[in-house]
């Protein structure tokens, strides 16, 4: 039987929703136990959140000052030690998980399965390659622990609230390096819903034209209570910061409603949105590839249409 360790992602003392999505993927393996590992400077509040996730057996905490920031070189040796006795170690396929999990896999001498979209068996998984243009089924060797990152857009967050996992402090005997130091995290301050977990997202592309013009995207987003995203072209042109980028090398998201405004729909962008519930495209070019994937398309001038849409919503 499988035993799965899920690595919790958190920031500012709060559990990231990606953790509950990784728990969903773990549950799909039908293991005898799913434990969540919280590595933090102060783990109690985060562990309490994790303990409420349904399906979690135990929450293990390693609270030490060195874990104040998610430095892969510091976390990986602890995770590798904590992995003893588990058949699988899962982390979210976010920049956090992508950074730390391969380091864990290498320490454990095992291959990593990146971006798990579906679980076909305890050692069989589907994952995307070529920017999602092909989906492969991969078999991992049962003789090794399976280290995997979970493509969060493919998994619902496991329900939270009814879980009642025990919380236990874990003592991990791992030498931690001092060669890597956190300096700062520059975050875009925003009251809008988080792009990665928002149920509605409004994204702007090159067609928006400038940083100033992007205001029209924020305005519609606020009207809808939506998160804001952008295409790579809009980020490269300096309209918005890079953490708003949606696509193959940005964030891969699955909101219920995705509105692509002035986005032509390069394959790299489409990779990031194809699990969205409903895709709306607004573009002045009726031939734009975004219309091939849009559920609802509207050809026209976004600067004229967006105010009209706001008005029609009422």
């Amino acid at each position, binding site marked *: 039987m499988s035993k799965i360790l899920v690595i919790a992602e958190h920031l500012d003392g709060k559990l990231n929703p990606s953790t509950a999505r990784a728990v969903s993927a773990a549950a799909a393996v039908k293991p005898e136990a799913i434990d969540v590992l919280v590595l933090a400077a102060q783990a109690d509040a985060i562990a309490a959140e994790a303990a409420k996730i349904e399906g979690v057996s135990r929450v293990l905490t390693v609270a030490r000052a060195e874990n104040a920031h998610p430095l*892969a*070189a510091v976390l*990986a040796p602890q995770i590798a030690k904590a992995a003893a006795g588990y058949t699988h170690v899962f982390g979210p396929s*976010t*920049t*956090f998980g*992508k*950074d730390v*999990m*391969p*380091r*864990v896999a*290498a320490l454990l*001498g*095992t*291959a*990593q399965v*990146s971006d798990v979209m579906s679980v076909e068996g305890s050692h069989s998984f589907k994952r*995307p*390659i*070529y*920017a*999602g*243009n*092909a989906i*492969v089924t*991969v*078999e991992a060797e049962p003789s090794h622990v399976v280290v995997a990152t979970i493509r969060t857009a493919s998994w619902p967050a496991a329900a939270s609230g009814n879980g009642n996992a025990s919380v236990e402090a874990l003592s991990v005997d791992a030498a931690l390096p001092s*060669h*890597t*130091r956190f*300096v*700062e*995290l*520059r975050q*875009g301050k925003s009251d809008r819903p988080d792009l*990665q977990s928002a149920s509605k997202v409004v994204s702007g592309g090159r067609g928006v034209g400038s940083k100033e013009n992007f205001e029209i995207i924020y305005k519609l987003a606020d009207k809808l209570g939506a998160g804001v995203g952008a295409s*790579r072209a809009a*980020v490269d042109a300096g309209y918005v*910061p*890079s*953490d708003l980028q949606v696509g193959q*090398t940005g964030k891969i998201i699955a909101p219920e*409603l995705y509105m692509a405004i002035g986005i032509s729909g390069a394959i790299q962008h489409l990779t990031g949105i194809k699990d969205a*519930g*409903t*895709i*709306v495209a607004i573009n002045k070019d009726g031939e734009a590839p975004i*219309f*091939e994937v*849009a*559920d*609802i*398309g*509207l050809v026209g001038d976004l600067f004229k*249409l967006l105010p*009209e*849409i706001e008005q*029609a*919503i009422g």
Partner: protein
Amino acid sequence: MMKILVGYKRVVDYNVRIQVKPDGTGVVTDGVKLSANPFDDIALEEALRLREKGLAEEVVVVGIGPSDLTAHLRNGLAMGANRAIHVVTADAVQPLTAARTLLKLVEKEQPGLVILGKQAIDDDANQTGQMLAALWDRPQATFASKVEIADGKATVTREVDAGLEVISVDLPAVVTSDLRLNEPRFIKLPDIMKAKSKPIDLIELATLGVDSGDHLKTTHYAAPAKRSKGVMVKDAAELVAALKQKGLL
């Protein structure tokens, strides 16, 4: 003065529309254009800029692959690398094997910095740099959008989900490049001529004593599920009505 090792993988060109073979045994690669992994071009560009700033004296590009990979490594030399190392193997290697192979070269070459692309656009694994750093027991600075070197340390700005994270790492270290680290230069014709006389070391993978980490077996390839064709609406009012009908507004 330090040496910089750069991973330089060859992949299906990013403009090629990937087709899955009807029998599910792979993707069509016969006759398609192959190019440098875009992230590796960015990695190489960064190494060249550090050399041009006087912070490094030598840039070495490394490839792992079949005998015809040499022509691809010549492009890296034409871009400006001093020399190349071609680890020859007929079979594609998985990230753990690639990392173990790079570790052997690192032990031999003793670079002050290794720069790799954050991921290759074929398998999209995003693992090799992190794995090399782990095996080498050195720092990693992944998804870099800015690299500053001073006093034996690298200060690296990383593109993370929450924004931009800055970390400081002691050298030697592994850096992996993100898209906005730089814009790679174009190769000029005279540089292609010059590259012909630059050295390429050939090393058979089998002679390096690398324990294979190719633990994953790909059993099936499939085309992604297609989204069904949607509807076009003619104005804002129709759009809002359609969204209301779906319960989205």
